[in-house]
């Protein structure tokens, strides 16, 4: 019998702490598989965020740094500038990247910093218990928008991928989803492409991954994937937003 599929060695044996049905685990696996398939474990440095993925350094089986909230792109910049031969990636959520770290991500992108950013957008602050995020949809109920996000009061969700794609610095930006197997395969391709972009020295690459948060959305895992497909994708259209050949 041949192995068709098994857990990559780029993930450690530590059980993931994520809630049942949380798609962070899928995204971790795709990133780890990409590093594994590209044969770059021995020179990859991952930068973990603050948020649900704060313990990412326990899961990715490569050298890791843990950054302050939103600062992962700055940490990655320092790391990459010291050892340009390293492959440096950040793994950040929407609160981390699109709110408190909006300056760091924008400037890393516009500098064309030769790093890869995995941006997990689940439209909510997960780790702190389900507060409104910069990516929370209009009308979406969270613990700090209990009547639904009112754009008149707190503005509109940020489309990070489209925003960064307007800059000259980035070499590859795409938005993908992990709500079904087909989209998971597409997501994998994009993530691999992002790392290949860095390997080729082309500059900044970012993959925004739409992700489900069943616990804080107050849904079953199955309902949350459906909700992602029906509500998040219209707000955050999938596809490649920028690609420099």
């Amino acid at each position, binding site marked *: 019998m041949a192995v068709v599929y098994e857990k990559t060695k780029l993930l450690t044996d530590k059980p993931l702490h994520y809630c049942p049905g949380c798609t962070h685990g899928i995204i971790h696996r795709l990133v780890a598989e990409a590093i594994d398939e590209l044969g770059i474990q021995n020179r990859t440095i991952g930068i973990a965020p603050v948020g649900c993925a704060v313990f990412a350094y326990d899961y990715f089986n490569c050298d890791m740094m843990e950054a302050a909230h939103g600062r992962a792109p700055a*940490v990655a910049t320092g790391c990459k500038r010291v050892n340009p031969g390293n492959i440096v990636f950040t793994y950040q959520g929407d609160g981390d990247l699109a709110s408190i770290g909006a300056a760091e991500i924008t400037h890393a992108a516009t500098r064309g910093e030769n790093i890869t950013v995995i941006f997990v957008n689940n439209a909510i602050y997960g780790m702190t218990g389900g507060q409104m995020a910069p990516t929370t949809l209009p009308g979406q109920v969270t613990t700090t928008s209990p009547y639904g996000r009112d754009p008149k009061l707190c503005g509109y969700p940020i489309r990070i991928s489209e925003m960064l794609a307007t800059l000259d610095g980035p070499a590859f930006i795409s938005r993908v989803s992990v709500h079904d197997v087909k989209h998971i395969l597409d997501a994998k391709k994009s993530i691999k492409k992002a790392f290949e972009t860095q390997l080729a020295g082309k500059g900044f690459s970012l993959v925004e991954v739409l992700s489900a948060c069943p616990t804080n959305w107050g849904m079953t895992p199955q309902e949350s994937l459906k909700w992602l497909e029906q509500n998040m994708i219209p707000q955050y259209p999938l596809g490649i937003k920028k690609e420099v050949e």
Partner: protein
Amino acid sequence: MGQKMLMKGNEAIAEAAIQAGCRFFFGYPITPQNQIPEYMSKRLPKIEGGCFLQAESEVAAINMVYGAAGAGARVMTSSSSPGISLKQEGISYIVGAELPCVIVNMVRGGPGLGSIQPAQSDYFQSTRGGGHGDYRMLVLAPSSVQEAVELTQEAFDLADLYRNPVLVMGDGLIGQMMEPVEMPERKPRTDLPEKTWAATGWEPGCGRDRAIINSLYIDPAVLEKHVNHLYEKYAAMEANECRWQEEMTEDADYIIVAYGTTARIARSAMRKLREEGIRAGLIRPITLWPFPAAPIAAAAKHAKAILTVEMSMGQMVEDVRLAVEGAVPVHFFGRTGGIVPTVREIITQVETLAKGGH
């Protein structure tokens, strides 16, 4: 480079860092320290492996320092008071993750946007850690451009030795004035531990554990153990790194305690007072943390009074009082907001003490 050159304090600090092996600098413009990043932006790109980057903010700059230090490099950032406040988050993380780096603060008047003139009102912030959590930093306070060169160079060794950031605390005057300096090349100390903890790429069987540069310890018992470990390092710093300079303290009735620019003015005042027949002495802390409490306590045993002079409303004076433990009266004179005290003002203060005033 044996011969003396005339250099501005800020530029001398930048060149000194390069001569000590610093190849990475991340900064953000703020007066009165701009000549440091400007100088680095000229020099570092011309040196193999060197990199200067102007960050989008002080916050980003200190986090770039975190990443570069985590990758094992000798790295520096500089700023002035409001910018140093912004860096505090990153400094706390750097301490927690036990990363070595050098931070320069050319202190200006505060609070808030304050002024751009010299001040020493960041003493509390510098010597008490500055950011959140239980920690300390070595704080080196030069009082001349030459000393700024030497302390900056030593700061890199001390940072590597203790795996802790080192703060070089000057003020607008130290940064802006020109003095003749010798600029030696300085090789790193040979007894420094290898940076086997740095994140440079790992695979199974590569001969070391996977590097995790991190300050998160979610289990309180583990965090307490980690902080205890940090405090063992601080105890070693207190035992080994405390520095100060004493002048004419042996027979002094009145001891002036002052550091940095203020110490230069206090020295002139002390000499004038001696000419007047008033036995004055000077203790100049060179490390603000660890604080030279022992020599101050020793001098207090035979002095009539101590006068602490600062460019602030009185911050170091609290450490002087703690050192003296009430043995003699500790008086304070300070100017703040960017005003530099004059020799005459200090003389008047001591004369008043000598006449039994205050």
